[in-house]
């Protein structure tokens, strides 16, 4: 793939980069990326560390779990988990890290409804975050031993003599080769045997004496339940362990193609050209499937910045909600983090509770009558300086302290709103509709109405 020339990276390109590789941002934030230039802007996004602006995350799951054990009216660790990730998405200074974690959450989709442990879900989420930029095989090995995944796909129920095929099947169908990647039912059955004896340790949340175990779930290998016999898998034969199976599955040529295409669909476009795929396959081979190298190549390519690939993807509910908050430069309080989680859920994306093991289909499937209606209800609040919040009985709604931009004239207000929400001043039909609505009145009321119209426009659904 051709690289974008450094001179062509300016504010509109930085805005595009942040929409896709992050959750957008304020004009100031976008400008700061534009000032860095192409290479450094991309490096800044790829850089990760623990001092990412979320160090003061108020959602302490352990504390919340104990509080609820003693007082059933408290929110508890599961709600805490939801707030915890929302807080990260809204506050992080390393947005690509959260965007990738969301990508992997959709890829290795796991539902807390079945896992039933916020601690196991948090552990998985941290694994996705920590390993999400590294070699793909390392990530799949870790996820295969992840307690939440083991519970979700019944690996802990898979024992020698009577294998449970759930994990073995999804490992190939959804996590590595892809459904048409060239495996057989035989491969499913044989590899299921290699994951026998893989289980995890946790505790009973009803028993306080189990707390330490429940709060720290961990992988356990039960040798007695492991089937160490010969297995034939994807054309190879041997006394394979589960690790061997993961290694063979990841090394299969279909895997690189499947993962690269999915990354491209998530960050660039619904279709990937032969040239782009070949070029990414080469990087995959030379780096042994290192995700950060793939992302660097994508975000510095001409194709990523091509006009045909700008404002063409439908925002996921997470994108829609979090980018709205980040564009406003607003820092939500904990009650609003819960509220934003629920808003996202209403729009069709329940974090930690994807619809099934395939994750969210994304694209145009985000759009239905009901999801559009929920999107409009959310932005209706935003335009009135209201954000959803979950408050305890008798507690007052937290105040909202962002300001919508009121210019000196209607034209200035329209420009400012356009830059704030669409990264550019509104043109043509949209501008005419806004002007007609304001009818020359540059008041707070018309500011709110125009905000609604911009946020409710078809344009605002696009990234």
């Amino acid at each position: 793939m051709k690289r974008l020339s450094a001179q062509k990276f300016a504010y509109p390109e930085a805005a595009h980069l942040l929409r896709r590789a992050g959750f957008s941002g304020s004009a100031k934030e976008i400008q700061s990326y534009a000032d860095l230039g192409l290479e450094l802007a991309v490096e800044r996004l790829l850089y990760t560390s623990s001092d990412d602006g979320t160090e003061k995350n108020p959602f302490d799951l352990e504390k919340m779990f104990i509080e609820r054990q003693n007082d059933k009216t408290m929110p508890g660790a599961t709600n805490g988990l939801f707030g915890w990730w929302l807080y990260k998405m809204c506050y992080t200074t390393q947005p690509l890290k959260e965007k990738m974690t969301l990508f992997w959450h959709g890829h290795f989709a796991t539902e807390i409804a079945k896992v039933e442990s916020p601690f196991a879900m948090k552990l998985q989420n941290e694994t996705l975050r920590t390993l999400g930029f590294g070699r793909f095989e390392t990530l799949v090995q870790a996820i295969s031993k992840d307690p939440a995944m083991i519970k979700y796909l019944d690996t802990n129920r898979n024992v020698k003599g009577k294998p449970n095929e759930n994990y073995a099947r999804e490992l190939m169908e959804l996590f590595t080769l892809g459904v048409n990647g060239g495996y057989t039912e035989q491969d499913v059955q044989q590899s299921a045997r290699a994951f026998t004896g893989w289980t995890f340790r946790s505790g009973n949340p009803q028993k306080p004496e189990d707390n330490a175990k429940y709060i720290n779930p961990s992988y356990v290998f039960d040798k007695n339940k492991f089937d160490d016999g010969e297995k034939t898998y994807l054309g190879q034969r041997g006394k394979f362990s589960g690790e061997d199976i993961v290694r063979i599955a990841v090394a299969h040529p279909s895997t690189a193609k499947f993962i690269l295409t999915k990354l491209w669909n998530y960050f660039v476009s619904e279709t990937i050209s032969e040239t782009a795929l070949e070029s990414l396959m080469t990087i995959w081979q030379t780096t042994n499937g290192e995700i950060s190298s793939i992302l660097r190549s994508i975000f510095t390519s001409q194709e990523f910045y091509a006009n045909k690939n700008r404002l063409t993807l439908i925002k996921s509910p997470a994108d829609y909600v979090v980018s709205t908050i980040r564009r406003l430069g607003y820092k939500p309080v904990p009650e609003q983090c819960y509220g934003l989680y629920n808003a996202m859920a209403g729009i069709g994306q329940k974090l930690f509770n994807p619809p099934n093991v395939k994750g969210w289909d994304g694209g145009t499937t985000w759009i239905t009558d009901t999801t559009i209606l929920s999107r409009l209800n959310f932005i209706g609040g935003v335009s009135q300086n209201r954000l959803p919040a979950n408050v305890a009985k008798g507690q007052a709604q937290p105040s909202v302290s962002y300001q919508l931009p009121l210019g000196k004239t209607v034209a200035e207000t329209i420009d400012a709103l356009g830059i704030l929400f669409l990264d550019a001043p509104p043109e043509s039909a949209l501008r005419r509709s806004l002007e007609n609505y304001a009818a020359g009145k540059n008041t707070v009321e018309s500011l709110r109405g125009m905000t609604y119209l911009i946020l409710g426009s078809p344009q605002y659904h696009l990234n």
Partner: protein
Amino acid sequence: MNRRNFLQNSFFTLAAGFGAPSFLERTALAAAGQGKILVVVQLSGGNDGLNTLVPYTNGAYYAARPSIAISKKDVLPLSSDLGLHPSLKPLMQRWDAGQFAVVQGVGYPNPNRSHFESMAIWHTADPSARESEGWIGRFAETYGDPFCATNFGSSSPRALSANSLILPSIASVDGYQLKLDPKLDAAYKDLLSYPVEGYSDKGKTDLLRQNTLSMLKNTARVQKSLQKYKPGAMYPKNGLANNLRDVARLISADVGLRVYYVQQGGYDTHAAQPEDHPKLLGDLASSLEAFRADLEVQGRTNDVLVVAFSEFGRRVNENASAGTDHGKASVMFALGNGVKGGIYGAAPDLEKLDDGDLRFTTDFRRVYGEAMDKWLNVASNKVLGQSYPNLGFIK
């Protein structure tokens, strides 16, 4: 104002302002075969057909499932060799009344054990996976009305996708409205009346614009038709029951929808099936029975046919987790006054399996086809590409 008061108040204004089609109009519609309604229930995850319709005299069944088989004494017998899972008890009255049909051995050629691939086949009614539109989407195109079928839930299944129109998806009837002050409402509709300029993907901007416009139209239509509805039955507390109550409410309001699509998840019982499966079937049966009782109070039982399906059945042999892995053929049900009760389709042979799974005996498109031909009055060959022989489960 709390939510309840608000709803009561809005009922007053709605009841005073708008009416449903008059009795004469309704009779005319019904006479033209227009009043008949199909409710499709999707059981997601792969319902275990063998433990739903149990071959309770078959030794091979008990041999294959030492810890999860339904024992003979618990089965609700339908015939000398087949009986229902005991959790389906709420539906036995329907069986006795001859309004409950079970189709066994349902499937399609070259079965796929992937949830997603198999569900796509059921949604598109095309085992060759060449068709992109859903079968209800194609039905709607044939019928020619973008408001003839709806999903309940926020994400719309592929069954309702169509190339030339956008079918509604409703999460809840109460929430299905957009309230804006009149000036903003007018400005918003004005804005949506122009195509988006300056964006490169016209397909997407049009889709978003059209979807928003149709949502505005659909919400207005639904809210306008709502009359004072009092549930005629106590519904159990679960997601399926909530959706069915909304379906009953829209049916009683005669909003003009012909097909309703609802879903119940959780059937992927790889483990602990004796704990999970009874609860699922129990929720299903009690929800459907409440729905029927409600329709009776609304005077609409003669107009509604319920059909339930799942993407596949499960492995005949249980696994070591007291569960079952993905399988092939399963069962479908149909309920309603228009149904000719009984068991349809040949029983799959438990001793001639296909890689451990039941072989299908009855193509699922025969059920879809009959529902369209004999209930919805739309020629099924136009939707399915060919005619499938009717099973005769509809009177």
